[in-house]
């Protein structure tokens, strides 16, 4: 192959251009999707963190989102377990929160995944809506009993992620 041939160079340039254009188009798709969510920057962060997002349709993006909710949920459950040792007085409320996040990770997430794969987006939306509510309920349970919440950042993070993913799922309806 004559690498210095103008034709080869042109072909290579076109190929690069196409790939670049295609990547830009995927990026645009992700950006547009995220614009329709309550936290576009958070949305971009979640989606772009997964390389598969470059070749994703809307359902795939939603699945990446649900995976992020799961990861966050698992992380929060670990945090709760640690808090139960370090702040034993808060144990009753922490138990409530643990049940809330257990529901997110072991019920809402699998249900949402199954629903997205089957094309029944509404059940996936319900799963993400519940995930946000569980985080809100956990947060409120501290103040309801006169305690300062040690989990405000975590609960807010879950609430935000779940609402972003819910917004993406609504685009499938």
């Amino acid at each position: 192959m004559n690498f210095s041939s103008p034709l080869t160079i042109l072909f290579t340039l076109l190929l690069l251009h196409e790939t670049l254009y295609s990547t830009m188009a995927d990026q645009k798709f992700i950006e547009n999707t995220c614009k329709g969510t309550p936290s576009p920057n958070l949305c971009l962060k979640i989606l772009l963190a997964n390389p598969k997002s470059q070749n994703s349709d809307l359902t795939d993006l939603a699945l990446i989102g649900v995976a992020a909710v799961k990861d966050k949920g698992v992380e929060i459950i670990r945090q709760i377990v640690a808090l139960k040792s370090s702040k034993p007085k808060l144990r009753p409320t922490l138990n409530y929160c643990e049940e809330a996040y257990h529901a997110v990770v072991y019920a809402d997430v699998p249900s949402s995944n199954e629903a997205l794969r089957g094309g029944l987006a509404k059940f996936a939306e319900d799963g993400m809506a519940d995930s946000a509510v569980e985080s809100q309920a956990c947060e409120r349970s501290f103040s309801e009993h006169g305690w300062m919440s040690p989990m405000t950042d975590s609960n807010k993070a879950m609430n935000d992620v779940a609402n972003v993913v819910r917004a993406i799922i609504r685009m499938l309806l």
Partner: protein
Amino acid sequence: MASSSPSDLENPHATCSYAPLPGGTGDEPTVSRHPKKSAAIFLVCAFLSLAFVVALIGVDKAELNTNEAAVVLSRGRGVDKGVSEKSFRPLLGAENSYPWSSNMLDWQRTGFHFQPKNNWMNDPNGPVFYKGWYHLFYQYHPDAPVWGKIVWGHAVSKDLVNWRHLPIAMETDQWYDEQGVWTGSATILPDGQLVVLYTGSTNESVQVQNLAYPADPSDPLLINWVKYPGNPVLVPPPGIDEKDFRDPTTAWKTPEGKWRITIGSKVNKTGISLVYDTEDFKSFELLDQVLHAVPGTGMWECVDFYPISKQGENGLDTSIDGPGVKHVVKASMDDDRNDYYSIGTYDALKGKWTPDNPASDVGIGLRYDYGIYYASKTFYDQDKQRRVLWSWIKETDTEASDISKGWASLMGVPRTILLDKKTQTNIIQWPVEEINRLRTNATVFKNLVVEAGSLVPLELPAASQLDIVAEFELDEATVMRLNDVSDADVAYDCAKNGGAATRGALGPFGITVLAHEGLIEHTPVYFYVAKGVDGNLKTFFCADQSRSSSAMDVDKSIYGNVVPVMKGEKLSMRILVDHSIVESFAQGGRTCITSRVYPTKAIYNNAQVFLFNNATAATVTASLSIWQMKSAQI
């Protein structure tokens, strides 16, 4: 429509709208630092409120401070009233520390609403009356109280009220329903044969339609089922997404003698209903025309299509057609989780249906129910010649609670459907008459005069399972005299106007159920009458969950809609209270509202019922019959 726009996440739509995190409004009481002082204040206030309430009963009304009375129903007295919110909070310590004790969760199970023993249920499937038994199949997830890989649950009844649970009718055992045995309908052929068409989600998650029939047609319990070896009988046609093709209807006869079904779908954002003809339920022909389409409504799930009689008082077989008949098209809107219906005219030759009133078309007009009510389906009960409606009623608490209690979802009480002969523009729904057989122990109140701003406790043996029938009359003089009117009042919206605590001249008034004695928790069901500038009255019917529970992880929306009231009609309501579900019907079933409520205190012996009139001007005269409802076998 009462629901907010789908993309509005500041106010997530009603089905998942929970009270937001507090913004420091002071609504949430913190633990009292002076238990003895609070106890004393509590006792004084309890005595005062009891005295206040006692003063209301009887003909001679004591001088009533309407501000005080109104405050009883509102969010609680402000600091300037001298009594803080927290003093009404019973000081029960640890028992009250966390919302969901097993006592509270156990109470939530119903006494007479269909529900499986555990785990998750959604859409009703293939309801039918066959060889002396009513059959109900349903979407069932046997593994957890959340939606998942779905099979067909099955139960039978002689009376639509008492049920015998049977084995799973159909499992996910074929490639064409491996991801789920989804919703379908039954058709009884003229020779008595029963066939079922249902949606399967294939191993590749494509939505297809499958044929199934009883393994033994002589078995009245229809325990075993056979799936047609040639399944699927229908796959998504060109132009239809493989995930937008589900929920086949009961079939009806065409003028050519073929069978016809319709299946909901969408093209972009236009909801449509595809039409197929068949002679054998095995091979189908897609008609060029859809049955109907409405732009902007999104995916149509669980489409239902049936005739109603213009003059008669009976239901009609699905195949009936003719001059004395109108046709209803109903669909469940995927976008907003509500069931909509419209009355119109069916052209059997073209396979096309047109609404009588395009402004009230499918998806944009009337709803079967203004609360939680979805994926509903009717069947023709040939035994009693009525059309019966089933619907899925989901939970509106958290998934964590559903996991704790081990179950999620109910069916609504089955309702008969008829054309409203007086208005001609809507149907009426009414609980099947068999439900009345659960009535026992009636308490009757006649002509109770309830002045503006008053609350009347109703003495009852128990209040978790009730059938309440009530009639109300507003005092004519006040209605006529009212001059200070504006069109703002007739723009009342149950969901947005603050519930039973918001007072108008002529409302709200009604009955509050699952009420705790201090009204810390209560669920008002009420009428709100507004007088417009033109002098005409507009009546709203609402169910208010905003104070239904002290728990902060349950939905507290307010539901409702306008209800047509004909000249000379009294205002009437019927309320079925059954633990965590309240079904309310206005004007004989013109407007219906199903609510899910999860009180933590107004349960067991602490549940009460009050009659109330929170209007500022009008007096209301009420007559009620309240029955205790026995539990059914569910």
